[in-house]
Each structure stands twice: as C-alpha cells, then as structure tokens.
C-alpha cells in the first residue's frame, strides 16, 4: 500500500494504544482491551463499541489485519478473532511515537525546573 504514514498522524489515543498492544504479538479483542488498560495504568478502558469501531477503521486503513479465529488457551475453548499489525501499522505507530517523543523533548526543555 502506498499510503504515506504521516497521513495517519496524529493517531487518536485508542488507535495508538491498540497498535502498541499488537506490536509484540497478535491478540484477540479482549486481550487488546486488557493490554491497553495495563499500558495506561487503567486510565484507558476500551468499551466494546470503541474497540471494534477503531478496529473497523484500522482494518479499512490497512493498519491491522485479521489473522484468523482460534480459541485462547488461557480463557476457554471458544473461538476468538485475532488481529495482527501490518507493516503499515508498525510504521504508523513508530512515526507517532517519534512525534510524541519530539513533543515531550520540547515540553521538557520549556518546562525545565518545573516538576512535570
């Protein structure tokens, strides 16, 4: 896909954290939700509508893709739909992380001496 990565920036917090959840491995919906809650120390609790609404748009944009259905051995033997990050998704989340890092550097310099 030839979509330039910067077109996606800035990523919304749910999209950013969903991509981060999928960075190490493919996950199903509930595992994504749990991981996002963990990443943000419980501050971002994705509801079913928010999560799947984001996934729908991310699938359409090619940031993630489905990687089939299978049961999660840790939960029960019900089949769950797994999602995987695409190379485009990976470069988008990288670009967003760089953008944020740049913003943080500026913030640190301007607010030097203040407790952030």
């Amino acid at each position, binding site marked *: 896909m030839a979509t330039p990565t910067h077109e996606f920036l800035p990523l919304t917090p749910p999209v950013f954290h969903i991509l981060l959840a999928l960075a190490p491995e493919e996950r199903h919906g509930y595992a994504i939700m749990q991981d996002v809650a963990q990443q943000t120390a419980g501050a971002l609790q994705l*509801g*079913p*509508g928010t999560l799947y*609404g984001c996934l*729908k748009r991310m699938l359409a944009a090619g940031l993630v893709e489905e990687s089939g259905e299978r049961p999660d051995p840790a939960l029960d033997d019900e089949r769950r739909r797994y999602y995987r990050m695409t190379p485009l998704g990976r470069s988008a989340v990288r670009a967003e992380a760089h953008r944020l890092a740049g913003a943080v550097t500026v913030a640190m310099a301007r607010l030097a001496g203040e407790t952030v």
Partner: protein
Amino acid sequence: MMPESTIGRFCRLYSVLLYAYPPDFRREFGRPMQQLFRDRCRDLARSPGRLPLLRFAIQTVGDWFGTSVRERAAAFWSAGRPLARRSSVTEWALTLVIYLFVTTTLVQAYVVPTGSMEGNLLIGDHMFVDRLAYSDPGPLGRRILPYRDLQHGDIIAFLYPEDIRQTYVKRVIGLPGDRIHLENGQVLRNGRRLAEPYTQHIATFPDPYRDKFPTAPAAFTTPRGRDMFEHHICDGEVTVPPGMIFAMGDNRENSADSRYWGFVPREYVVGKPLLIYWSYDAPTADLEEWTVNHAIDLAQHFFTRTRWNRTFLVPHSQAAQEIGGAR
C-alpha cells in the same frame, strides 16, 4: 460474587443493545463484542465489591450510546447512493424503536413504595424488572431464551389483582396445589414448617388474622380475599388453585399480601427484580407521584439520602428450608 446466570442475563441485555448499531457493523463485530462483554463481566464477577461493576456499567452504557450513534453516523455518510441514504433514515427509526423496546418489553423501571419487603427491599429502591424472566416465550422461544417457571422463594413483581394499575413486589410462598397456613407467624407449607431466612419479624401486637392465617375473613379482607376464604379453605389451610400464586411480603407483620387480598393470577406476574439502580430514602407518597416538593427534596439531598451501598444490588430469590413438622 455474581452468579453465572446473572452474567447470562446481562449478556442477553447487551445482545439486544447491539441492535442500536448499523446492521453491517453488527454483522461484522456483534459476536466478538458480545464475547468481550462477557469476558469482562466474568473478570469483574471475580473481583470483590460492586464498585468495579458500577463503573463498568456506566462505561458500557456510555460506550454503547456514543459508539452506536457514531457508527450510525459513519454508515450514513459513507452511504453515497440516495437509496442507501433513505434506508439509513429507517435505520435511525429502528434505533429509536430498539430504545423503546428495551424500556418497555425487556425491562421496566419500578420503585418500591412500601416496606412490605423490608429486610431485602427498602422503600425508595428504584429497580429494573426483568420482564422476560417469567413470561412464557412459547414453544419456539423456549429453545432460544432461558426460561424458568416460578419457584418457591422467587421475588416477583406483579399487577395488584384488586387494582391492576399498581405493581407490587412480593415473594412466592405457595404454588398451585400447595396447602398453606400460618402458626404464630410461621408458614407451614403442605404441613411442613418453613425456615425462611429472608423474613423480618417486627412484633407489633398479636393479630390472629395475620399470624394464625387462615381464620375468618375480616372487615379489611378484600373481595378477592373473601373469595379465597369462601372457596379455597379446607381443614384450616388454604389450597392454591391452578394458575394462581400465594405471595407474601418478607416483612411479615407489615405486609398486605395474599392473606388479605387473595391469590395472584399467574398471568399478572410482570417479572423478576433484576437490579437496584438507585436507592433513595424518600417518603412513600413522594415515590408514587412526582411533586415539586419531591424535586426540591431531591435537589437538596440527592447525595446524602441516596443509599449508595444499595446501588447495583441484585435482589435474589432464596428458597426456604422445609423443616420437619409434617402432619
């Protein structure tokens, strides 16, 4: 904490809420969304206390409302063809119908106006009544919906037989065929004494009518109550006829129940108390009719008079133990 059956009921409710989303979205993500909802319910059921549940409920309602509107809007704008546009107008109408359907058919909001169930339900408990729980879904629906007939100890909401504009909440004591009588305020069903952990006894003055039921009709016995005394009493016991229920309040000494106004017809049963969503300490009269005074009282005392510890309490049916004493 929360039994699997309660989780099942929440999931059923959620599966209906999903109809608020556009059909394409529902087809694509409806099942995983239900899975996610159930997984989260199960997780929360394991954690102690109701606070996480309360937060989850508020989050879910917010999430549902916000995203269903958003997905509807997205479906509306992405539909380029005029034909599709017209159909998304009907889709909005459908959403409205679903909102109405949920509030009229599936659940009904109800306020406990009297203290007859005190011990378990307090005056001012606002709750949802699950209207599906005891409604016969018919031979086909029976396979789809979990349906259970009434059992002893179930709490039921029903239309007051003497005035069906009122809804009462009591507990099922006698089902068709049961023989019931009271001795010293204790229920004997089919000759067996019941140990009823859910009752509350506040002895006021001795009242043979109330505590040694059935004796003889009194001035305050209603017409239906008199009919019960006339036709369904045999050997000092009342026999519950087919299609009827003998219901009593848990606050035995302060409950106007089947002892006074007779049986509840099975078809008058509205449903099962599902969840107390708000409990507010207010006088009975204020709960029955909204007045300006009540609104002012509410504005002034909302935080102090709301019984926060009762929020999201699930009233449970509880079976009485039958103990000896068989005749």
